[in-house]
């Protein structure tokens, strides 16, 4: 029982990070119908930015309080990652808007290759490890045994929950969220009604990047190591999560992220760690075969 609860905690932590990345995929897909392949690498880039800013603050500016340092890194990292994603959208995707379906996808794959190699060139190919932080653990008795809840796991889950509330508020209650939902439903009609579609799409990329940058910081904090190749696997899993939940659906992305995190953790805990990704991908395939538009996605209506 305690083992099970422990794995549940670990799975939810990992799932929170996947969920944050998945939102970026699902928002972009919802609004321009494009798989933003570079998103995983934007996440990796943001983890690097977070790492460098953290080192800058603690080593050069001598910020002693960990909490203050992390909050500054969070805000600055969000801004810088957003600038990157804004630029990427501007250079690589906007000229291809209205072009045929595969053009932006190839451009995004090219961007993804560019980003991971760019980071490799400017930061070197080695793994970057920092000392573990937030190492306190809470020991909670469960049944006959006990489980440990690390402070950083708590931070990850709390940050994710707060961000999701903010995101929900922005999408549902603000004029920008309304414009975004309108653009998602019908781009041409939205622009006829005075929505600045280009700006809305840019802001969607900015929001996706901001969430990915939080995920990058949390990842860096949780594992304490980043590498230029860290973009692909979490990116593919987050995209899998977005598809599993039903691409285009925000709650679906979070649900999918949590599910992928849980599947991966439980599979490693009870079966074999080697095949944990196989399990996640197989479940994706099985779910899609029976529910072709994901768990919470709207089924496509075929119009003739």
């Amino acid at each position: 029982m305690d083992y099970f609860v422990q794995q549940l905690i670990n799975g939810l932590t990992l799932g929170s990070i996947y969920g944050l990345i998945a939102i970026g995929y699902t928002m972009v897909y919802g609004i321009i119908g494009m798989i933003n392949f570079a998103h995983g690498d934007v996440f990796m880039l943001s983890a690097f930015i977070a790492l460098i800013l953290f080192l800058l603050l603690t080593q050069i500016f001598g910020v002693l309080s960990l909490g203050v340092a992390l909050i500054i890194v969070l805000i600055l990292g969000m801004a810088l990652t957003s600038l990157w994603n804004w630029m990427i959208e501007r250079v690589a995707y906007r000229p291809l808007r209205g072009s045929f379906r595969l053009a932006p996808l190839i451009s995004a794959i090219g961007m993804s290759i560019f980003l991971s190699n760019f980071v490799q060139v400017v930061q070197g190919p080695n793994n970057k490890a920092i000392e573990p932080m937030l190492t306190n653990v809470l020991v909670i008795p469960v049944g006959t045994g006990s489980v440990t809840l690390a402070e950083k796991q708590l931070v990850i889950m709390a940050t994710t929950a707060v961000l999701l509330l903010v995101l929900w508020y922005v999408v549902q209650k603000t004029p920008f969220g309304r414009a975004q939902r309108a653009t998602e439903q019908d781009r041409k009609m939205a622009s006829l009604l005075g929505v600045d579609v280009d700006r809305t799409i840019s802001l969607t990329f900015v929001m996706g990047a901001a969430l990915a940058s939080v995920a990058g910081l949390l990842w860096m904090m949780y594992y304490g190591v980043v590498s230029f190749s860290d973009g692909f696997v979490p990116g593919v899993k987050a995209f899998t999560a977005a598809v599993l939940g039903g691409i285009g659906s925000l709650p679906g992305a979070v649900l999918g992220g949590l599910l992928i995190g849980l599947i991966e953790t439980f599979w490693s805990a009870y079966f074999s760690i080697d095949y944990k990704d196989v399990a996640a991908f197989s479940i994706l395939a099985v779910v899609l075969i029976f529910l072709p538009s994901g768990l919470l996605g709207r089924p496509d209506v075929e119009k003739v």
Partner: protein
Amino acid sequence: MGAAGDARAGSGATFLGALKDAALVALITLGLSFPIVALKTEQDLQTRLILVERWGLVATLCAIAFALRLAWLLLGTHVRLPRAASLLDASSMAKLRLLAPWIGLLFVLAFPLIALGIAAAGGPGPLKLIDNYGIQILIYVLLGLGLNIVVGLAGLLDLGFVAFYAVGAYSSALLTKTFGLSFWIVLPLAGILASFWGLMIGLPVLRLRGDYLAIVTLAFAEIVRLVLINWVPVTGGYAGISGIPKPTILGFPQTPLTRLLFMYYFILALVLIANWVTTRLRALPIGRAWEAMREDEIACRSLGINTVMTKLTAFSTGAFFGGIAGAFFAARQGFISPESFVFMESAVILAIVVLGGLGSQIGVAIAAVVMIGGTELLRELGFLKAVFGADFDPAQYRMLLFGLAMVVLMVWRPRGLIARRVPSILLGASSRAAPGAPRG
């Protein structure tokens, strides 16, 4: 770095406006490069991470961005590249279009001779030229032709084509090593096994459309790769399989050079056969059904075409070519490992198909030459060390430039290099055009 003010390019005609715009671009470059370029993380002697400041590099990058943007705004509107069509009149253009495939074929046939000539003139060795450029590019052309059937003709987005490549390579390696079968038996077997895998993957995912199909094929390819890594008793895990025997005919190719020439002409023959098969298939009802399905699946179904069978044949035919390419790859390398079958390969093959112009076989060949040949060329730029200092390694920038080239080519020509699509069938007089002629 054409980031800012594309919409205002018109007002950028004035010098001051252009200057302002370029300054903005430089500022954005500064923002982009602030932590990631300016501060490099390095390990000190206690293996702690420390930061190394590189503001000079950032300043250089900003200056380059500024200069490029300024040049683009001031000169970009005045300088126009002459278009090929305006240089030649229509009839000689048409003649050129007809002749180009044959000239290309002649060049490809004579390529080893040219390589030998370059080597004789003091260039790099012919073995390296033929192997790195000739054979390498032709393998990608074969893979591209296979994926072209799935993506280009049938319109099914497959992000996991490398799975079939891997199946072909591993099945041929295992069959030759374990059962001692000859390469000439194994080659078609590898293709057939791969096409069975195409059926196996195709069958469950047929209900999915568009991007869902893309992610499931990607997932399948990852599953195949993970199984190859983890099923150590059979596949050797990360260590892979080595010592795969080279193909011979009655023990003929013996010296390295003749063996290489043999492999070159063999893969060339495979590519030409694949091209011929594709061209013939496009003229058959099944090829017509593929293209009809790509254009409109619903209309296709209402006209009585069995889309399930159409999709499955596309998947398995494409996979067959992929499997053949895999078997050839295994025989050429003599060694295979899961490292060769990562997602990057799928992305590169897909890029070749899309950059070539979906559905165009000539386009696949041109894109493979540009992308693979271009990145191979970057390995050769050793002389740049003299310019940028000894620790400058051009090979490091290979994939970076590859990614950048993909973006630039796509933005420049979203429909691919060969965007002109000749319909496979036309109503009226031109429908009697010879179906066997190479199509652009």
